[in-house]
């Protein structure tokens, strides 16, 4: 209990500078308060984007921010408005998703609170790193650092997860067991904390650094869930379905704290938030239902697929930053082309994730219907 209190105190100390609580670091030039005109097409675009982001989020616990923020910017919203609105859309969506998955018995609230509080503190450390890099190498240097870290981390973790999911597929099992997590469970430094729903007992000194690292990376590469979920699976030994559900609690708290800061400064465009929610509140519940249709390794498969495609998208943006730093020469046409290609690939990652989730639900439903029909025929025969 005292460990939670200590984490809570540190969390409260961290609150004053939570502007980048979701991780997106903005330069002074990006902080423009200007609201876009929304037409019917723009509204439909936001609803569809919200649905896909919600679907992925409900299924793997995170995802969406990487495409929702640039998606809003493509409608003409300044970066600060897009980041603030994404943040404000994230906390209700995560709340609904977390509630649904709690009802399915997939959520460990205590684990979620521990991870969320330590991650929010980790975000503060990440912001210091970001500010240091920004002060030293400016906007392009900071973007280059973020992109390189993003590509490296997401590629490595994504490839390992994909390999691991394939192992489970080949062995025809529900999931694999993490050797590292087994070792971590043997660390008996007090205080030891039991997480009953997740069925684990780990040292505070294992979980706190994991949460901190998640937050630190969230502040750096802006996709904390892509680190938090694999961390819970491979370091704490939590099942993928439980880890992805618990991540929604982390997303809720990060989203709420971030929203408070941005909304106090008046940067949230509530119209874009509500249009995103119009799609995502449906999507997140479909995604949550989807987790009850699939085997555990499917979470790893979907997550790793998205991570790898998104890292390609981010990798495409690297030459632009090298150009801005004067390290290579590119003409404006190429820069624009790379920019567009990067965004399209991100949308593709989101859409592909959605197709995999819905496709697997559909397939399983058909199998069950066929099984039911088979049973009915057998009963008639007998």
């Amino acid at each position: 209990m005292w460990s939670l209190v200590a984490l809570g105190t540190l969390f409260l100390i961290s609150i004053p500078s939570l502007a980048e609580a979701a991780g997106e670091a903005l330069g002074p030039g990006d902080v423009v308060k200007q609201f876009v005109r929304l037409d019917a097409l723009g509204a439909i675009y936001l609803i569809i984007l919200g649905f896909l982001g919600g679907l992925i989020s409900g299924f793997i616990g995170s995802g969406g921010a990487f495409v929702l923020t640039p998606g809003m910017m493509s409608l003409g919203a300044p970066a600060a408005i897009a980041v603030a609105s994404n943040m404000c859309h994230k906390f209700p969506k995560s709340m609904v998703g977390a509630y649904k998955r709690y009802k399915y018995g997939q959520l460990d609230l205590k684990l979620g609170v521990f991870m969320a509080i330590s991650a929010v503190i980790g975000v503060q450390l990440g912001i210091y790193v970001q500010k240091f890099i920004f002060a030293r190498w400016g906007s392009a240097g900071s973007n280059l650092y973020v992109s390189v870290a993003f590509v490296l981390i997401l590629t490595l973790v994504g490839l390992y997860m994909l390999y691991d999911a394939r192992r489970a597929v080949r062995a025809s099992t529900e999931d694999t067991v993490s050797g590292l997590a087994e070792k971590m469970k043997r660390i008996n430094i007090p205080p030891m904390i039991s997480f009953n729903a997740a069925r684990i007992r780990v040292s505070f000194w294992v979980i706190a650094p994991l949460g901190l690292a998640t937050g630190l990376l969230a502040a750096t590469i802006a996709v904390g869930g892509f680190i938090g979920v694999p961390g819970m699976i491979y370091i704490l030994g939590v099942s993928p379905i439980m880890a992805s559900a618990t991540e929604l609690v982390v997303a809720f708290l990060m989203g709420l704290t971030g929203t408070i800061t941005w909304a106090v400064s008046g940067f949230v465009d509530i119209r874009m938030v509500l249009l995103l929610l119009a799609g995502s509140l449906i999507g997140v519940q479909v995604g949550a239902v989807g987790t009850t249709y699939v085997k555990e390794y499917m979470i790893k498969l979907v997550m790793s697929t998205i991570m790898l495609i998104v890292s390609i998208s981010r990798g495409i943006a690297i030459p632009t930053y090298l150009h801005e730093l004067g390290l290579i020469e590119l003409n404006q046409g190429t820069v624009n082309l790379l920019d567009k290609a990067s965004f399209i690939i991100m949308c593709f990652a989101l859409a592909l994730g959605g197709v995999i989730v819905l496709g697997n639900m559909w397939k399983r439903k058909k199998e069950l219907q066929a099984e039911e029909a088979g049973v009915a025929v057998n009963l008639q025969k007998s």
Partner: protein
Amino acid sequence: MGTQKKPTGRAILWGIISLAAYLALFLNQDVVTRNFARGGIFAIAVILTAMIFSFIHGAFANYLLEALGIQPLKKGVH
């Protein structure tokens, strides 16, 4: 699962409430956006609005999915 009554009526009711809430906000979007952009104490209004819409539209989405037969297959994961 298949024998449960589908909540079509509730889905329609919450759908109407949700649509009305969206219409009310978007028909007054200039006033709402201008005030919410003032920040400060208006942050509470932003958060409350997001919460209220997520409750209304979330309830609609829940009943809609149930009415469409999109329901969980099993309780628990272990």
